[in-house]
């Protein structure tokens, strides 16, 4: 068994799949031999995730002893 490795880079958003076959030569007969076509599973190309954060608006004033709820979304 042999492994062949390819490296690709997604440049546009969307889905893609790879299809390929392998071809070889019989060493005894020199005849060409070809495998069947094989499809990969689908790969989705997406944006890099980005995190945005923000605070809720807090009251301008509060008392000592008073509690405040802070929400970050």
């Amino acid at each position, binding site marked *: 068994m042999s492994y062949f490795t390819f490296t690709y880079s997604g440049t546009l958003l969307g889905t893609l799949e790879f299809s390929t076959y392998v071809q070889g030569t019989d060493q005894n007969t020199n005849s060409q031999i070809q495998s069947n076509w094989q499809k990969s599973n689908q790969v989705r190309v*997406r*944006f*890099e*995730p*980005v*995190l*945005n*954060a*923000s*605070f809720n*608006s*807090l*009251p*301008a*004033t*509060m*008392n*000592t*002893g*008073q*509690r*405040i*709820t*802070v*929400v*970050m*979304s």
Partner: protein
Amino acid sequence: MQSVPSNLLTNISGTAGVVQISGPAPASAALVTPTAMASFTWVYQATTVGWFKFSAWATGQDSLNYNWINSAGVVSNVVTVQAPGQLTASMAVQRLTVSENQDVEIHLTVTNTGGAAIQNIWTTDTGTLELGVNGSAASTIRVAGPFPAAPGFTLASGASNTLTWTYRGTAIPGVISFSGMAVGTDQNTGQAVFSNAPTSVSVSVQANPALMMEIYPQPASLTQGNVFTLLLTVTNTGTAGLTADAVGVTVAAWSRSARPLPST
């Protein structure tokens, strides 16, 4: 992608004391779909006056390539921590003695001796315009007040407002005193704030002064050209004090000589 908030406790700046009570809740959240959003909640408690603000960021791990991703840092608005609002009331009366049916002014001064502003201040806890009247209450009526006319005022920290009532005592002899208080709402907490309930010094209601006078020419009979003395006896038959300012004497036909009596 898993999104995990940073620890806010290490990102508080300011002069106020703030302690964390709980949070973040949830501790983490999965943001699987694009534009997915999660909210993280903390509860803090202010312990000392001053100001503070939060700064934080979120961090998460890409579920595909396991890279860690940070959000940009965010800063909250500034929060000012104040001492609770506190109302202090004092009462003063215009005079300590009044005559029957004479008006007396009562002044109630309300001061916010706390830190937070106090709103919607009324000068009685019942919402009426009356002061409490002690003593001869049944025969004491409110003539006017309070002035300024509209209760429901606001006092910032250190500010004060004096309200004036006019009452009239109709019973003699009478002793009356007045009591009042103020109640408002702390602007920060929305909780009711009650002042102390001072009582004024007593006001004595006295009978109106009344003058009774007798006149005694001495001697009772005299000759033309003689000098004689005219004795006037003036008596205040009321209980309120009286100052005799001047006395007028009219002598019919003859020449006259008169001097005012000394004041009593």
